[in-house]
């Protein structure tokens, strides 16, 4: 078991440590599929409003690769298909029948795995609507099924606040996880990395030789892009695949049961809970279903996915296929009197200009206020000092703005972990992460997949 120490990053100082209890929620009346929230996917509808669906019925295909599908997480009737601007498919809402029917697939015993070739495996996962769970660096689109990955990274946890803890979702499912690892070996990676935060205290039977790397460090240590950056040997390693621990369990469950997996462990946290709770519920759960469990003050922002990387969503929405976390944050839309001379005992900051830095354990109050006006970059170097993959965001973003493609690629733009820290620390409130992310996406169509990663 190797150990990685990620030096750069940020400890937000939210205080309360996550609890390890889990609450089983009743099955909700509606479930949703959010094609808009699967990055890069260009969805085409395969079903219409009012259609009867089973658990696992394909609802959406990707126009770029019609084999890649998204499936219904519920059996029942399509109650609504919500379109956004430019007819983007936001949400497909399924009203659940009391007795749900399942699309039945062929089961696969552990000893049959060895005989299977990776193409067939990928085909079956695509047909089941589960392929988008496997992502590929550097762009974080779903993995290209025809590729043979040199590295597959299984990230069991992340240092991002309010994420499901492996100690909970792995409990009692160790063998399923082993089965999942065996699945991944069918894709023939040279390295199969299974990473776990060094702070996690998992029981021995859960560890049991499954972990290849323990990772110490602040957020975003443990993020697959960061792990790859710190373990890669050459440019050929750049196109690693990665999957999150819980998603691998979904894959494994699909093959073992022959049915579309429906169970999801969702972490909820934020200002409301002071700490974190886990809920065992369904894929595509309505957010209101979880929020009903929390005492909600007014003016809360609902964030799906993560504090630093997630997206804002309406309370009436559902949780997407890739998201496992729901955070309620104080919106913070208010003026603060004399903020300039406030010592800031509970103000989150990376700098050393607030008194909160005197208390490393921390118990800061986080909100969505920008805490300042837009300014030009003053080269304070905070962004470069937190960047976990040693990019110099303040230089890269300038190169992006003047369209110096060669230059920003040489700076390592494609290594960007999209962790959001550069935007977070910027005193000039420049949207660095958004700019870097957009530049990556814009470069995606020009990327040379046949190259060796060293020359474009």
């Amino acid at each position, binding site marked *: 078991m190797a150990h990685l120490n990620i030096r750069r990053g940020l400890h937000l100082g939210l205080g309360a440590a996550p609890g390890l209890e889990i609450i089983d929620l009743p099955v909700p009346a509606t479930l949703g599929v959010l094609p808009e929230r699967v990055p890069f996917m260009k969805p085409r509808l395969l079903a219409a409003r009012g259609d009867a669906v089973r658990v696992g019925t394909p609802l959406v295909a990707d126009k770029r690769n019609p084999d890649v599908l998204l499936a219904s997480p519920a059996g029942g009737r399509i109650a609504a298909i919500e379109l956004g601007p430019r007819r983007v498919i936001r949400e497909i809402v399924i009203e659940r029948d009391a007795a749900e029917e399942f699309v039945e697939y062929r089961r696969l015993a552990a000893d049959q795995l060895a005989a299977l070739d990776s193409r067939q495996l990928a085909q079956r996962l695509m047909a089941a609507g589960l392929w988008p769970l496997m992502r590929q660096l550097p762009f974080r689109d779903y993995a290209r099924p025809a590729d043979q990955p040199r590295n597959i990274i299984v990230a069991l946890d992340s240092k991002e606040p309010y994420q499901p803890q492996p100690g909970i979702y792995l409990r009692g499912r160790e063998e399923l996880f082993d089965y999942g690892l065996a699945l991944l070996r069918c894709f023939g990676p040279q390295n199969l990395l299974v990473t776990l935060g060094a702070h996690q205290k998992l029981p021995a039977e859960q560890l049991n030789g499954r972990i290849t790397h323990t990772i110490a460090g602040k957020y975003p240590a443990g993020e697959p892009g960061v792990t790859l950056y710190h373990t890669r040997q050459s440019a050929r390693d750049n196109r690693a695949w990665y999957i999150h621990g819980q998603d691998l369990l979904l894959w494994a469950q699909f093959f073992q049961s022959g049915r579309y997996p429906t169970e999801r462990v969702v972490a909820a946290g934020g200002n409301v809970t002071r700490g974190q709770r886990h809920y065992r519920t369904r894929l595509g759960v309505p957010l209101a279903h979880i929020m009903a469990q929390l005492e909600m003050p007014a003016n809360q922002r609902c964030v799906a996915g993560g504090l630093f990387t997630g997206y804002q969503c309406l309370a009436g929405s559902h949780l997407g296929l890739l998201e496992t976390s729901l955070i309620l944050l104080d919106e913070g839309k208010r003026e603060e009197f004399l903020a300039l001379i406030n010592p800031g005992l509970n103000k989150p900051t990376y700098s050393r200009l607030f008194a909160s830095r005197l208390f490393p354990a921390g118990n800061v109050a986080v909100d969505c206020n920008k805490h300042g006006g837009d300014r030009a970059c003053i080269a304070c170097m905070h962004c470069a000092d937190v960047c976990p993959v040693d990019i110099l965001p303040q230089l890269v973003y300038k190169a992006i703005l003047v369209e110096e493609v060669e230059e920003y690629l040489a700076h390592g733009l494609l290594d960007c972990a999209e962790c959001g820290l550069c935007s977070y620390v910027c005193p000039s409130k420049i949207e660095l992460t958004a700019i870097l992310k957009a530049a990556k996406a814009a470069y995606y169509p020009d990327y040379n997949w046949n190259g060796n990663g*060293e020359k474009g």
Partner: protein
Amino acid sequence: MNLIKRFFDAQRRHFTADGRLTRWYPFFESMETVFFAPARVTDQAPHPRDSLDVKRYMATVVFTLLPLLFFGMYNVGYQAYRAAGAVPGLVPVCWLGFKVVMPLVVISYVVGFAWEILFAAVRKHEISEGLFVTAMLFPLTLPPTIPWWQAALGISFGVVIGKELFGGTGRNFLNPALTGRAFLFFAYPVQMSGDAVWRASVTSGGAAVDAVTAATPLVVAAGAAGSGGVTESLTQAGYGAQTLFFGLYPASIGASSTFLCLLAGLLLITVGVVSYRIVLGNIVGVLVMGLALNLLAGENSAPYLSLNPCYHLLMGGAAFGMVFMCTDPVTAPDLHLSRWIYGFLIGMLTVLIRVFNPAFMEGIMLAILFMNVFAPLIDFLVLRSRLKKRIPNV
């Protein structure tokens, strides 16, 4: 709080949409945000943001400059009375200093702020707080006898030519305060250098006219002759190491006290506003160059070459420049290694200019401006070697 809130709410209508002063909204905004941090929220990830903004960043520097300003006032009054023969109590001394210094500070702020508002209004963006630092630094580097119109001209040149023409704070490549000072230094050498300008007169309420002659330590050092060397000449002229350290001698208004600069520097480094790499690099640069000159010094060379290098840190505006001027992050190079090199080279150049260039007594101003220009080149070279080590991903 409610009173202030009501005041701003009442004035807002003049500056928004159909008001008469719509163009000058940046002025209103900058005033309001001093009291009320704006109620802006994020619209994309990451959802929380750091509590630090440029306003607090810059305000920290201004706060740490205040002790230097107050000391400067005292020192100006003290030197004036000492030249006149008798030093009265603390209050009259401070009052005289206040009368001399405060107008310069006010001029600097009013004129500098006027330019900043003008450019912000034309560009339609908010006022950047860098100006508040510039406008505080600038008068502290001036001799107390400077005519008011020259102070106004200097800050105008610094803000407009040194900064706004290139796009404002964050896009300037020269330190604006030093640009303004350098402009005055070369345009009006009579009021900016020599022996006569460093002491205000007791009778002067405003701009002094009949200043009293006092050779500065740098002049004494450059002109030192005889067997005793520079240290002795300095001591004879009343500039012992202790005097130089605490800064109670005729000098530019706020830049003489190495002691206060040291305290301010330690504070700014502790809170991370000032790059310790630049400051330490600078100190090392001064000491290395000073020692190198010591080694070069022969029997017949000028005594200045044999000066203990520590004196270079004590004399003139070296400490002030090190802590407040060359650490301006915008005009310094970006990368950490570059900042070491940049500081080191400024230190070396400071000593070189002082020792070998009798026309320019104070080396650090020119050294910093010179290295400002070279900062992008240092970054370029350091960056190239840094990127070579990176595994490509294209």
